[in-house]
């Protein structure tokens, strides 16, 4: 009776970093699979930028820029940034759901790297960000948006936005760990995002804002990121905007990634 239960090999003492990477890739596969099978999330993810583009261009376009067409050239890079920013909320939402549903407890009872579920969730979400970018730019072009620089620069703009999203998703991950329920993540996340999105140069030039607001908008990294994207897609200065927004991205990572990992270790 005992022979059947005595281990044939004694269990490994440590986990190799390579195993951790493999665990993360398996969990990335899971996240991507979930996106593919969750059609509601996919539809929502695609409809959101379409709706924003239609509303902003045709409702505000004439008033802000004289014509919807002229405004589209200005606002598309801004809506690109905004869409991907909103999409990062999904990261925190999914982590929160996984913890509430008990899937993370299953992972934690397995002999896998402790950080793999977090890494898998974030890597998997890059897929969602890419979908957001493709839909926004694609639908913008259907409406008449034209890249006036060159395709390579436009792709550069998209990569810049994706890099920034990878930083912002750590904030989302932190919210996902700290807030109790998935609904809380939604409410809290959106409330925090609105001032960042609107008090910036994403949707309108900041020159008409009152002084105190201009100061905030100027410091807002979204303004920098949108300006860099505009430069790369429709022409204009790029250098310092791109550079400064990436410094912001690194700074956000440096602060929020450790906080999120700490919260994750505590809660999960």
């Amino acid at each position, binding site marked *: 009776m005992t022979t059947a239960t005595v281990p044939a090999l004694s*269990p490994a003492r440590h986990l190799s970093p390579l195993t951790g990477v493999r665990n993360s890739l*398996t969990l990335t596969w*899971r996240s991507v699979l979930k996106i593919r099978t969750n059609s509601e999330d996919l539809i929502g993810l695609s409809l959101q930028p379409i709706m924003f583009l239609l509303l902003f261009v045709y409702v505000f376009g004439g008033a802000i820029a004289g014509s919807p067409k002229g405004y589209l050239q200005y606002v598309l890079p801004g809506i690109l940034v905004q869409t991907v920013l909103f999409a990062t909320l999904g990261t925190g939402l999914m982590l929160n759901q996984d913890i509430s549903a008990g899937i993370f407890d299953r*992972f934690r009872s397995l002999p896998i790297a402790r950080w793999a579920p977090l890494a898998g969730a974030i890597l998997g979400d890059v897929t969602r960000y890419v979908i957001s970018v493709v839909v926004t730019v694609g639908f913008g072009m259907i409406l008449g948006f034209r890249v006036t620089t060159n395709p390579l620069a436009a792709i550069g703009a998209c990569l810049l936005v994706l890099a920034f999203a990878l930083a912002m998703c750590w904030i989302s991950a932190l919210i996902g760990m700290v807030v*109790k329920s998935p609904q809380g993540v939604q409410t809290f996340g959106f409330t925090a995002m609105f001032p960042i999105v609107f008090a910036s140069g994403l949707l309108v030039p900041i020159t008409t804002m009152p002084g105190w607001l201009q100061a905030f908008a100027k410091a807002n990294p979204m303004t920098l990121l949108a300006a860099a994207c505009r430069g790369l897609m429709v022409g204009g200065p790029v250098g310092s905007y791109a550079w400064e927004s990436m410094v912001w991205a690194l700074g956000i990572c440096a602060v929020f990634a450790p906080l999120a990992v700490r919260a994750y270790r505590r809660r999960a």
Partner: protein
Amino acid sequence: MTDAITAEGLVKNFGKTQALAGAGFSAAAGTVLGVLGPNGAGKTTAVRILTTLLPPDGGHASVGGYDVVGDAHQVRQLIGLTGQYASVDDGLSGTNNLVMIGRLLGLSRATARARAAELLSRFDLTDAASRPVKTYSGGMRRRIDLAASLVGRPQVLFLDEPTTGLDPQARSDVWDMIRMLVADGVTVLLTTQYLDEADQLADDIVVIDHGRVIATGTPDELKAKVGGQVLEVVPADSGRLGDVAEILANWTGSEPVAETGARQLTAQVANASLLPGIVRQLDEDGIELAEFSLRKSSLDEVFLTLTGHRAEDELALAAGAAGGRTARETEKAAR
């Protein structure tokens, strides 16, 4: 025979609530240990400590000879866990859930697929294999949870209330699966609120109440420990219940219990040799009997004697108070 699971003096506090107050027990390799107790007794907390999900505030525990705190990584290679909080992914199909776990455990793609197919067929889920788990019924859900904990062929399996909320058919299906595993030589720790479940499956039982072990033994030992046997008496004339109660009290020295509205009295009897005397006394007082029988005490009565409350009362009470919350949520709330 070595112990596959040992726990000594486990203490765990959530804020002001003490979930475990020095609980200790052990399970020999290849046996089933039933951990029995009402909701909130500390069963789930004990399982979470033994499966490395929660560090204890005091005491020690080891699984397969490895410390659950110091050698957590080794422990995780030996165990499987099924509980309402250690779940599978709702959004993935049964197959993909099992393949994912196989891949996480280091199986090749092909081996993970083969293992998933094998487990799905063993748990009678082949037809539902490609459907998302959120479409499964309660019983199927519990079976896929169980399958998920077996992908890595664990030597020690933790089943936290594996049949709570299942209908009788689904329950007995899960019992059959557990018996199958035990036949393979797996050590099982099973927590349950159901006395009959522990009676059916466990080699040894630990009764926990308020974070403490209040009794241990085989099901038979526990039944014997509490008065041993139960005398049931039904007088032909219910008007004489009072007289019967008095006689039973005098002879057995224990307080007879009458269920409200029932015509039957039950009394704990320490020694069967008292019976002739009781029968003679009843006869002398002219009490005709409709029924007079002696039986072993059920685990239910054991529980009542040990904890001072019936398991079912406690269950109903706890379910009402918690509003159907899971143990995990209660634990979180306590934090």
